[in-house]
Each structure stands twice: as structure tokens, then as C-alpha cells.
């Protein structure tokens, strides 16, 4: 799995391409945030309890991004699909800010053990999901 990911250094991109790229990210972001909001509304969490909704969303997003980037590489996908799906939809489907705040809330509520489980499941599970998705998406087909 090469280290190239979603943000790539671009040297000679025109302003127009950047603006259109941004719009593709925003459109994908609407989809990703909309799906996350729908799931979060269906499975609401109380502060201080194990944040299972965020965990499931983040693990699913890491898996799907792994699959997508591997397929994109294999099939030589366009930069537009990268902007829409990887940076927009799957980027905003998952969330780092809620993860960090939830860990802080668990620690603040005096549940360091729950916080540690949450961090462990999220990060180790997330890396495994991303790598698993990558090997899955890299298969010939």
C-alpha cells in the first residue's frame, strides 16, 4: 500500500481546476455528512457512554476508503472521483473531532477504562479496516 493518499502535492493546477475540485469535495461532503447525520440520528448516544455510533461510522469509513483508494489506483480513476468520493464523501462521513471530544468526555466523566477501550477499538480497528479494505480493493476483478 503506497503512502499516496487523499491530499497530494499539486504544483501546476489552475485556479479553475482547484475551484471545481473544491466543489466536487463539497458535493461529496454533502453525501457523506448526510449519511453520517442519518445514522447518528437513528442511533443517538448519551454523553459519557461508549460512543458505539461514532466507532461504527469511523471503522466503516476507514474500510470503504481503503477499498476505494485501491480500486481507484487499479482502475486509474480520475482526480474528480478522488475529490468526490475520497476527500468529500468518505472524508466527511468519518470524524476525528467527535472522536477526540468523546475521549475527553469519557476521561472527564471518570471512565478512563471505557476511554481506553474506545481509543483502542477505533485506532487499531481503523488501521486493520483500512488495510483490509486496501487488500480487498486491490484484488483483480
Amino acid at each position: 500500500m503506497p503512502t499516496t493518499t487523499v491530499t497530494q502535492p499539486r504544483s501546476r493546477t489552475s485556479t479553475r481546476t482547484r475551484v471545481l475540485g473544491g466543489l466536487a469535495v463539497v458535493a461529496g461532503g454533502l453525501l457523506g455528512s448526510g449519511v453520517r447525520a442519518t445514522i447518528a440520528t437513528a442511533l443517538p448516544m448519551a454523553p459519557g457512554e461508549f460512543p458505539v455510533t461514532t466507532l461504527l461510522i469511523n471503522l466503516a469509513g476507514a474500510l470503504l476508503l481503503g477499498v476505494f483508494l485501491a480500486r481507484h489506483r487499479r482502475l486509474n480513476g480520475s482526480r474528480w472521483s478522488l475529490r468526490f468520493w475520497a476527500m468529500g464523501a468518505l472524508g466527511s462521513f468519518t470524524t476525528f473531532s467527535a472522536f477526540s471530544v468523546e475521549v475527553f468526555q469519557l476521561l472527564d466523566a471518570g471512565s478512563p477504562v471505557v476511554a481506553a477501550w474506545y481509543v483502542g477499538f477505533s485506532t487499531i480497528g481503523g488501521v486493520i479496516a483500512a488495510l483490509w479494505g486496501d487488500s480487498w480493493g486491490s484484488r483483480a476483478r
Partner: protein
Amino acid sequence: MTVLLLAVSGCLGAGARYVVSSLVQRRSRSWVPMGTTVVNLLGAFLLGCVLGVGTSSPFWTGAAGMLGGFTTFSTWMVEVGGLGAGTQPPWKAILHLVVPMVLGVIAAALGYYLTS
């Protein structure tokens, strides 16, 4: 209604992430994916600030939606996986996993105590 507010604010956050992470990444010479890291830590700090203000208002919903879209967990995980599975030494992957994780919680706590 809440879903719509979250979706629209989230897509604005995604657009802001595109701008900020591209600007940071283009200036970075480091092996660390600085674009994603900066965006995530900034987003965690800001969500901590908003949490300190209070979670009862619609402002919380909009801000949480926007910062949820601004930050990304999936990109971070793929970057860690990429560093771990590539030709890079494994400590780089471990460092890029542990450092943003710890700093994210510190940033959120800092934001919270700053505004509460």
C-alpha cells in the same frame, strides 16, 4: 431538519478541509501527512471550544456538523496503514497513529477549558 442542518454544515466543513489541508500539504516537506494532521487537530480544538460553550443550542448542532465534516478519521487511518505497509520504517506508522490521537484529546480538552 436536524439531518439537513448537519449535512449542509458538514459539506461546508469538507470544503474548508480541502482548502486548508491542500494549503498545508503543499508547503510541507515532512514525511508526516501534515494536511490531515493540522485539519484534525484544529477541528478537535474547535469542537472542544464549542462543547465548552454548551450543547443545548442549534449552534452546537451546526458547529458539530461542520467540524465533523472538516475533520476526517478515515484519511488518517489510511495514511497510518500506508506508512505501515509501505517501505517506511514501522515507527513512522506508530508515531502517526499515537501522536495525533493524544494531541487530539489534549486539543479538545484545551478548547473545552478555554470556553467553559
